[in-house]
């Protein structure tokens, strides 16, 4: 299986190979001429190729933003589809430069896997989706239900915790990929499917009968989704982190794809620093000073990217909710570029 083959490959690499030069990711990306981005491949709205093979989605946009910042060309990205099972081994072994695959930032992953998380670009939580015919309106009514889940995820652990703390018993059916889990849910093998709430909306759109499924209101866990990079390369981590904050700052300051040219002439010192008219912030990252201009031109600001891929301008129609700006009651807070 591909997952075991990758794990075996990194075992061989670790055993006999030299330690990969860790602080050189930016240089390696520039030499290669394209960014290797670990993506989902099957999650609508976040990272999936369309029928023509062009990748699109919220996480995909983030990788395109990084590529635009480095190369001024958002198409210089190669997307590597990964399952939940092999995403970390792919990052650890150097197969990808950045993992942008709806991955939850947890302490054990941060400390024991040799990866670092850059910035939370989506505040999510775990939810349930059930067949409408079961007439269930709350997750607390799911005692003894059979729930399909993908293995190797925080979802698996949270599910067991939730049912135990609410004194309900549970039958889990675990699968290696989300596709298999969804198929089992559709065939009636399980009553419910659980994953991050954003994923539920994405998967429901792809069902053969989306109207036969409802998403239950309970959010049973915190799932802060964040892109991940290897530990030990602080310069690369800075680039990934500040790409996110630049996009949020742009939305806070009202800079968007449509008014970019006007904003370049703005007198607002914050906007001038953001767009590189003043200051050497781009160069301090190892990029050019117009790095944010490149990003906005490629994918827009945070709000634009959100709306186009998973918000009201998409089939998923997820509300901003927790992911609204902090000034609008949400949690997205852009760190200052100064």
């Amino acid at each position, binding site marked *: 299986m591909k997952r075991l083959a990758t794990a075996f490959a990194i075992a061989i690499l670790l055993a006999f190979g030299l330690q990969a030069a860790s602080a050189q990711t930016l240089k390696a990306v520039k030499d290669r001429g394209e960014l290797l981005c670990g993506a989902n491949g099957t999650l609508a709205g976040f990272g999936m190729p369309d029928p023509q093979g062009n990748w699109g989605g919220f996480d995909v946009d983030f990788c395109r933003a990084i590529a635009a910042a480095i190369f001024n060309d958002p198409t210089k990205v190669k997307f590597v589809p990964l399952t939940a099972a092999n995403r970390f081994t792919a990052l650890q072994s150097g197969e990808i430069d950045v993992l942008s695959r709806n991955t939850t930032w947890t302490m054990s992953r941060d400390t024991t896997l040799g990866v670092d998380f850059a910035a939370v670009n989506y505040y999510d939580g775990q939810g349930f989706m059930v067949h409408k015919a079961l007439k269930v309106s709350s997750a607390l009514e799911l005692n003894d239900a059979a729930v399909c889940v993908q*293995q190797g995820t925080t979802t*698996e652990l949270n599910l067991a915790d939730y049912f135990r703390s609410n004194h309900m018993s549970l039958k889990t059916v675990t699968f290696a990929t989300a596709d298999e889990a969804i198929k089992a849910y559709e065939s009636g093998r399980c009553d419910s499917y659980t994953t991050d709430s954003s994923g539920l909306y994405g998967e429901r759109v792809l069902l053969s009968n989306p109207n036969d499924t409802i998403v239950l209101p309970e959010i049973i866990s915190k799932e802060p989704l964040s892109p991940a990079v290897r530990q030990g390369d602080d310069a690369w981590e800075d680039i990934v982190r500040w790409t996110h904050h630049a996009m949020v700052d742009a939305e806070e300051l009202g800079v968007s794809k449509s008014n970019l040219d006007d904003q370049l002439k703005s007198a607002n010192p914050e906007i001038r620093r953001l767009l590189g008219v003043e200051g050497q912030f781009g160069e301090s990252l190892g990029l050019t000073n117009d790095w944010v201009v490149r990003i906005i031109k490629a994918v827009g600001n945070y709000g634009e990217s959100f709306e186009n891929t998973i918000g009201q301008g998409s089939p998923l129609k997820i509300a901003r909710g927790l992911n609204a700006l902090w000034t609008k009651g949400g949690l997205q807070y852009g760190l200052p570029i100064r």
Partner: protein
Amino acid sequence: MADIVQPPQRCAGSIRNLALQATLILLVAGLVAAAVHNAAQNLARANIAHGFGFWNNTAGFDISQTLIDYSSSTSTFGRAFWIGLLNTLLVSGLGIVFATVLGFIIGLARLSRNWLVARLAGGYVQLIRNVPLLLQILFWYNAVLKSLPELRSSIELPFGGYLNNRGLFLPRPEFGPGIDAVLIAFAVGIVAAVVMCVWAHRQRKRAGTQVRIVWPALGAIVGLPLFAFILVRFPLSFHNPNLGRFNVRGGLEILPEFAALLIALSIYTAAFIAEVVRAGVLAVSAGQIEAAQALGLRSRTTLRLVVVPQAMRVIIPPLTGQYLNLTKNSSLAVAIGYPDLVQVFTGSVLNITGQAVEVVAITMAVYLTISLFTSLLMNLYGRSVAIVER
């Protein structure tokens, strides 16, 4: 058997050979030690957790089929490993039994003089051998699932069982306090049966008299425990499954994943075993069968007493290989969500702990051990049926 000329035992060459072999062993051991040390250093430098400390950490996830006690809140990763291993051994063991029985039947059927039977068996072998096992597993899983009714329209079986697409639910036997006596009686019955068979065998060798021992032996094995059972006042009750809102609670549960995997593995391996059996039977020289017929033995007796014992010598080595294949193929359970060792250990545990190197190494070592043990047993059996050359 041709005489082999043995070289003289003591000569300088043998000491040289020993020295070379010792050097090679040291070299290989040194390479392995260096690789392990290098891997540990690299893991430490990349800040990836290493070592086997994860074994005693709480697992936290649920498993759908557990043959021993398991709780997601208190059981450790080590416990999850044993659960996965038991599930693998269960499906492999049962698969070996069914595949052997089915394989022998199909193999002998292919040699039948009945044209239809022989062609049907041949068709079975050709079809099953040439379709990849993964596709067959998925086929049986979807066929098994799609044909079973939903929970709300479960088929009700006699004695209080239920059959639906969540599984087969049977009344679970629960044993009362007197069950030890029954088990002891069972053991005594087996010992008595073995003693009787040995005595009958020796009678035949010594005095030439044939003692009909089948019924008394069976009587000992079945009758003694039954007698003890009645004596201890029936320590057996059944825990019936209850049809709940979402699921059937209680009772003995047989998952559709387990059934699909078992059926697929048995049918697939039976096709290969059929060919092995056919090869073994064809290897028995025709003169043996003609001699048996000349002696007046019926074809069924010929098969049982003349053909199969001689064919077993040829059948055992490739049959061992098929058993090992079946055990390793059971790891395809990942595709349908059956919690075998690979699915639980290299799936959930590997991804929660992130320690790919240790987990995969342990899994490989376990499969190697199972395979070596199986081939050891088969070799012992093979040696017992081998012809003793004078």
